[in-house]
Structures are given as C-alpha cells and as structure tokens.
C-alpha cells in the first residue's frame, strides 16, 4: 500500500517570512543553524545509526520527501553526544544514552528473532508490527528486562523523534503553524480569522480519515 500524505496548506512557506517583522535576529540564527548545520555522527555506532534511520522512517515516514527528508537521526545523535538529558530519569530506566543503545539494539534483536533479518531490510508492515509490539509492551527477554519497552517507546523514542521533526520549518508548513512571531505577533484572534501573514487552509483531502 503506497503511503500518501498531503497538506491543506500547500501554498504556505513559513520561511517566506524570514525578512518580515515576524522573525527577529535570534530566531533567524537558530533556524539558520538548524537548517544549515546538520550534526555529524559522533555518538552512535554506524550500525546503530542505520537501524535508527530505519526506525525513524516508520515513526515519522516522509514519502513526500524521498530526496530531501527532514533529518532526525543526526539530531538524536547530537543530543546523545552532548549528554544533555531532559532533567529526569524514571527510576526503572537506565540513563538516556544507555536507554537508546539498549532500545536500538532491542529492536534489531527483535527483527532477527522474528524474521532472521536486520530491521532495516524488513518491509514496512513487518517493521511496524515490531514497533507496535514494543509500544504495547509485547516483547520479552533482553534488553527489555532492564528497559521497560512501553516507557522506552513513548518517553524516549517517540518524544525525541516527534520533537525533532516538529521543530523543522517544513513541519510547520504542513500543519499551517504561524511559526516565529516576534516582534510582530498577531492581531486577529477570533475563530476562522487569520492575519495576512498566516497560512491559508485550502482544502482537506485526508482520504479515509473522516475529516473530509
């Protein structure tokens, strides 16, 4: 089944506001860096990196950007390289670096156990069913005895992948988010109203989701 994605904000580009009063210098600097300086691999091993690429391609598929996807794995690697946590660790979880290592290894191990193949070489439905099993806690043995699978999936994997993706201007575009807004904020606050510098919703073509 081909995966299809379309946005109701097809003619919107938040970067077109770069030189307008919606963007101040510090925000331009931050986004310039995010777009221009994709971090190199410094923490993960090459095989961990490859597995994580395959995982991210399922957690956040980008069939609409085959040649130029929003990079995710480099930013996870950078977080791990910096060793910057988010301020807490669940008492039943290893530290963040160990959690990632164990989790990536555990997904790879599950692929080989079930299908005798690397995770990255499985077809999408098989990859998804492994990820779903981890999300639901339906995996056992190493490393899941020391890494609670549901917690890993939700608090570590999803949180990071989704956080990185929706920090990218391409993601702001497809959801019609106003994006940076300083010094100029907004004037029209009522339902159905938008300022001229906000995204225009054109059409909904969410086939089969009931939002039509």
């Amino acid at each position, binding site marked *: 089944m081909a*995966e299809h*994605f379309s*946005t*109701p*904000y097809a003619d919107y580009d938040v970067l077109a506001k770069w030189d307008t009063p*919606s963007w*101040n210098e*510090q*925000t331009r*600097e*931050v*986004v310039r860096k*995010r777009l221009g300086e994709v971090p190199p691999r410094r923490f993960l091993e090459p095989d961990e990196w490859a597995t994580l690429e395959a995982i991210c391609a*399922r*957690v*956040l*598929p980008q069939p609409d950007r085959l040649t130029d996807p929003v990079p995710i794995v480099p930013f996870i690697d950078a977080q791990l390289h910096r060793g*910057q*946590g*988010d*301020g*807490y*660790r*669940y*008492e*039943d979880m290893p530290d963040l670096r160990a959690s990632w290592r164990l989790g990536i290894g555990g997904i790879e191990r599950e692929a080989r156990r079930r299908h005798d193949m690397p995770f990255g070489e499985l077809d999408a439905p098989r990859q998804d069913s492994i*990820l779903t099993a981890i*999300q639901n806690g339906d995996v056992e043995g190493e490393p899941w005895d020391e890494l609670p699978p549901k917690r890993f999936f*939700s*608090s570590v994997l*999803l*949180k990071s992948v*989704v*956080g990185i993706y*929706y*920090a990218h201007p391409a*993601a702001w575009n*497809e*959801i*019609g*988010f*106003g*994006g*940076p*807004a*300083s*010094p*100029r*904020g*907004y*004037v029209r*606050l*009522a*339902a*159905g*109203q*938008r300022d001229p510098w*906000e995204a225009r*919703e054109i059409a909904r073509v969410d086939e089969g*989701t009931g939002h039509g």
Partner: protein
Amino acid sequence: MGSPERPRARDGRAPNVFRRGEWVPMRQYDDDEEVDFAIVGTGAGGGTLAYKLAKAGFKVVAFDAGPYWRPLEEFASDEEEQQTLYWTEPRITGGQDPIQLGSNNSGRGVGGSTIHFTMLVLRFRPEWFRSRSLLGYGVDWPVSWKEMWRYYREVEEMLQISGPLSYPWGPRRGRYPRRPHEINAAGLVLARGCEQMGISWVPTPLATLSSRRGEAPPCVYRGFCAVGCSTNAKQSVLVTWIPRAIEEGAEIRDLAMVGRVEMGDGGRATGVLYHREGEWRRQRARHVVLAGYSIETPRLLLNSATSRFPDGLANGSGWVGRGLMVHSNNGVWGSMEEEIRSYKGPPVMAITEHWNYTDTGKDFHGGYQFGSQGPLPQSWATSLAAGRGLWGMELRREMTRYNHLAGLKMVGEVEPQAANRVELADERDQYGLRIPRVTFSYSENDRRLIRHAEEFMRQTLEAAGGKETWVEEGTAHLMGGCRMGEDPGESVTDADGRTWEIPNLWICDGSLFPTGGGVNPSATIMALACRTG
C-alpha cells in the same frame, strides 16, 4: 543563541532587561562581608523576597544556579531552542505515578519558572487556608485568608494583572489593575462550553500587559509564552521584582549554584557555600533563605546535614522533603469544525473556577480549575504521540488538524501525603552533590477528583462543538516538601517561613505549601514572600 556560560551580574552591574546591550548599576558584596540575607533562588519566592528585604534596608545577596537572560536579544520564537530555560540537571523520578520533571515544572535562571509560566495569577479560595477545619480534608495553613488577600493585591499590583472587572467566585476582590485581553478563539471555546453547561467563566487574570507599562509594551499575542517572552510584555519576576530589587540595593548572583548551607557551632547558619566561575566560594550571612522550590530546597537541607543535624537541617519533624504535591493536569482534547489557531495569544485565556467553589455534586475532597489551551507544535505532537499513542502517517495526518484543535486542562488539587517526597539518591551531579530522588503516587481521592474533572471537561468541550475528544494525563507545578505549620512536630517552618530548629534559616517558596489548592501556585508563592518580607 545558547546559554551564557559566564555570569553577567558582576563588576558592579547587571543586565538591563529592557534595553539591548545595556546595563544597570548593581551593588555588590564581598564574600567575607556578612550580609543580612543570603537568598538561594530568584524565582517567585526568592525574587519577590529580595525586593522586599532590600527595600526594607537589608543587605541582600540572591543566588541563582542559572543565567541572567536578556529576553529581547536572546529569547527565540522557537520551542526547541528555548529548552535552555528548564532545570535539566539529573533527577530520579519514581513511585506509582512518577512526575515528569524538567520542562514540566522547573526553571533555571534569574526569575525562575516565571520566565516560562503561563501567567495565570489566581488567588486561593479563602476556605483552603483552613481546609481541615472548614472543608474536612488536608491540613490548615498557619496564615489567614484575610491577611493573604492583602498580599495577593500587592502581587497583582506589582505584576499589573490584566483581568476581569468582577470575579464571579469568592469574596469581592476589586478590579484588576488592567483591562482583560481580547479572548482568543480557544478561550471562547471554553466560554461557549461553560455557558452551555450553565456555569460561570472568566477571562483569565494574566501577568501579561494589556497596555504599555514604562519600557514594557503590551502583549502582541505571539503565543510563545511558555518558552519565554521576547518582548517583556510578560510580567515575570525577571522584569518586575528583580530590577526593583537591584534598584533598592540587592545583589543578584547568576550562575551561582549553592551546594550547602554553612552552620556555626551555635546551631545557627553562618552563610552558604556556592559554586561560581569554576570554584567553590563562601558567602557569610546573618540569615539564609532557601527559595529553590519543592525539590531543590529540601535537597539542599538534606545535603547540608551535619553531625548535629544528621538527618538534614531543620528536619527534626521528619517533614523535610515530605508532603510533596503536584496539580493533576489532565486534559481533554478535541477537534473543532472551525479554525481555532490556538497558537495565537497566551495559552490560557479563559478559565472556570466553578469546581473550586462548589462543594455539592462531588464524590471527592478538593477542587480544580480548568482553562483553554494553546499548545505549540512540538508540544502538541508530543501529546498526540505520548498521550494518544499516534505515530507514523497517522500522526502526520492528525497533525494537519493542528489549527482545528481545542482543549481544556485541569489544575486539580492533590492531597498532601507524607510518602510523596524528595530524598537523596547515591548518585552525584556535576558539582559532586547528591541528586534528588522524587517519589509520587496519587491517592484514591486524587483519582476520583481527576475522573470527575475529565468527565466534566469532556461534556464542556463537546457542548462547545468539540468532536473526537480524548483524554491526556499529566501533572503541573510542584508544591510542598517543607511545609509551614503551627506544630513544630508536623511541619518544617512557622507561618513566616522560619525553620523551627534554626532561627536564622528561612524558606520562601512553593515548598512551604501545606496543601495545593486547585489553582496555579505562583500568586500564592509571591503573596507568601510579600508576607515574609
């Protein structure tokens, strides 16, 4: 931008937060000079108190572990970048309902969590100060509501709160200093729902300006409030109490992590040991005030144990670290036919306190307020992923409904329990200090309150036109951990925040709360600081 690595409040000056690149003169004290008050923390408690004490003529030094930000130059319109505002030092969280820490309920920097708070400035219901005697649950506070009412007014004046002309619940409180803001579409969803349900609602009393105040402009509704205000419309501690404290002669020491309260032979505190610019230093002080909030304040007391106080300072009652509370912060989300675009304006522009002031029709003790919501994309995507379990194409498609989302979130009272607490783990942080271990579990009553709120919020959202509603679990705020009281055997401090065992050691922050109430805590923390000061 990144976080500043060197202190800025030094060499006799501090950043002028109202002007790019400019400075204000600041008085400074030598480590060896015995100041009147060393205050640990510059948030809602410590920042407020620094002003009050300096104004009263005392020599004050206030320490903050985090940086002294320049909002105009440094705060980006970007969720990811602004993660630097939170306390991200290692902590362990456990119990049956482990609390999310970090960005959820902490600040690190001059001004503390008020840098990123959502600006709700709400008073406690008067009866909550005597909830045991009058309502039959929790414990009584050692202060009276009438007294607190005066200090709430002082706080509302200092922050120039924009709020409704009249407040439908509780005793009369007079007008707020500034007119309410125009309510955004998300807030009007709450309004419509409440009217359908037959209950009152109000434009939220907010600490963001509805008209110019000196060098601070009115709010432009940019919507990034929860990751720092880049215009100074938000009346955080950084732009209100702190500049005035410096003007009155207080010294602020940024990037200064206090690791220990120093004790003398006579059982009195003699100062603090702090880490700044790569070395440990000692500041002598006649009085020490802890204002590091519900985790760092008890942690510091425990980490300062001596042979005379082997279980930590001021811990004769055993209540240091205990009675830790949060607010249940579950939300009901739904999708609206019309475009809401809740990213515009402060996140919570309308609330109802109906269930804080109504005692009938409840199968639980305590109360809750609930308000409209305005999550930014990262935050909303994380809710859908972690809260609703969406990922893959399902998540990307659902995210295209972002401009149609509407939600209501509760701030629900949680019972104080001795078993919910802060302790020390064996692990150590970058300063060599033992890190905190936080344990939290809801009580049966807490769960009944949450169920009631979820059901009522769902009905309200659906009455306003919300479709496909779903519930997200979560907590907000921290309170308790060093509660005040009337009985030295059951509390850590008296009504003034003075510890029972060490007469010149004080506490002035949210850890003093004996109970949590059903409203956001910052107004009450500041009001207590005004009272102590």
